[in-house]
């Protein structure tokens, strides 16, 4: 069967319980999908900013983190290597969790578009536009 975009107030999105039958329900679903798309764009920017702040706030010389045996480094003013590496581990674990969120939300948006409902598609596109517009300028700001 050939699939094509349709305008409809009925759709089932992602989960069995997300079943829409009315214009009000469709409007709400479009808003949710729009918010999801905004969140997706924001997460992409947020991940980069978090990394930048983590590096800056910990003021770690690059050599201290990439060298395994770094016992007599010039780190007399910086915190002990072990706690710094632990903080870096937590930070990177947090980044990975955010990455999983980004991957999952990205796939959810793809599946929402796959419903071939035009209202939902508009919601995804508009949300991506709004999210990109609001979030990406923050990348170049310090």
């Amino acid at each position, binding site marked *: *069967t050939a699939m094509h975009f349709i305008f409809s107030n*009925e759709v*089932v999105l992602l989960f*069995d319980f997300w079943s829409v039958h009315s214009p009000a329900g469709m409007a709400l679903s479009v808003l949710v999908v729009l918010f999801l798309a905004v969140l997706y764009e924001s997460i992409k920017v947020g991940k980069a900013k978090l990394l930048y702040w983590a*590096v800056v706030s910990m003021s770690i010389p690059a050599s201290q983190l*990439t060298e395994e045996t770094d016992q007599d480094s010039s780190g007399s003013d910086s915190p002990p290597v072990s706690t710094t590496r632990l903080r870096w581990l937590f930070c*990177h674990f947090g980044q*990975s969790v955010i990455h999983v969120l980004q991957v999952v939300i990205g796939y959810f948006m793809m599946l929402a578009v796959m*419903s071939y409902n035009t209202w939902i598609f508009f919601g995804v596109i508009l949300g991506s536009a709004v999210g990109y517009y609001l979030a990406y300028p923050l990348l170049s700001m310090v």
Partner: protein
Amino acid sequence: VDHSHHKGTSHMAYNSTTVPSHHHPTTSASHSHGEGMHNMMMHMTFYFGFKNVELLFSGLVINTAGEMAGAFVAVFLLAMFYEGLKIARESLLRKSQVSIRYNSMPVPGPNGTILMETHKTVGQQMLSFPHLLQTVLHIIQVVISYFLMLIFMTYNGYLCIAVAAGAGTGYFLFSWKKAVVVDITEHCH
């Protein structure tokens, strides 16, 4: 096509492919009708199950819990490999960008003075081995990303979790060094 009926008909399709004996004329129409119903058996919402799960290729069907466990591991590793490939390509690109050309040209300044504007161009030669390797890796990356998309499109909860967990684990393992070595130098621009 009204999708709200799908979750109801998917179970009916199971029963209709094992054709009841009273509806068994020798015309080909009924057979093609059965085939059509079978193809419409796509899930449109998330579900957890391991019976009759078709994965990417015809003939690759999961029917037992053991097979689902194997598929979970395979999909997990595929998603992890995808993240690693992305990181590997980035570092390969950085290493092979040898030809840095500086072009300086005079441009008119604000008060009628002459300023020197310097352009820095970083690039790869087209017929070089690094660029050919990058192209091959790019195709592999595109194919794997489409496979992961199609796997997620099965709406099977176990497989989707495998994709997400594999991506997270791959990102955690492969971005570890990269995040430290590369991003710090990039922020020094």
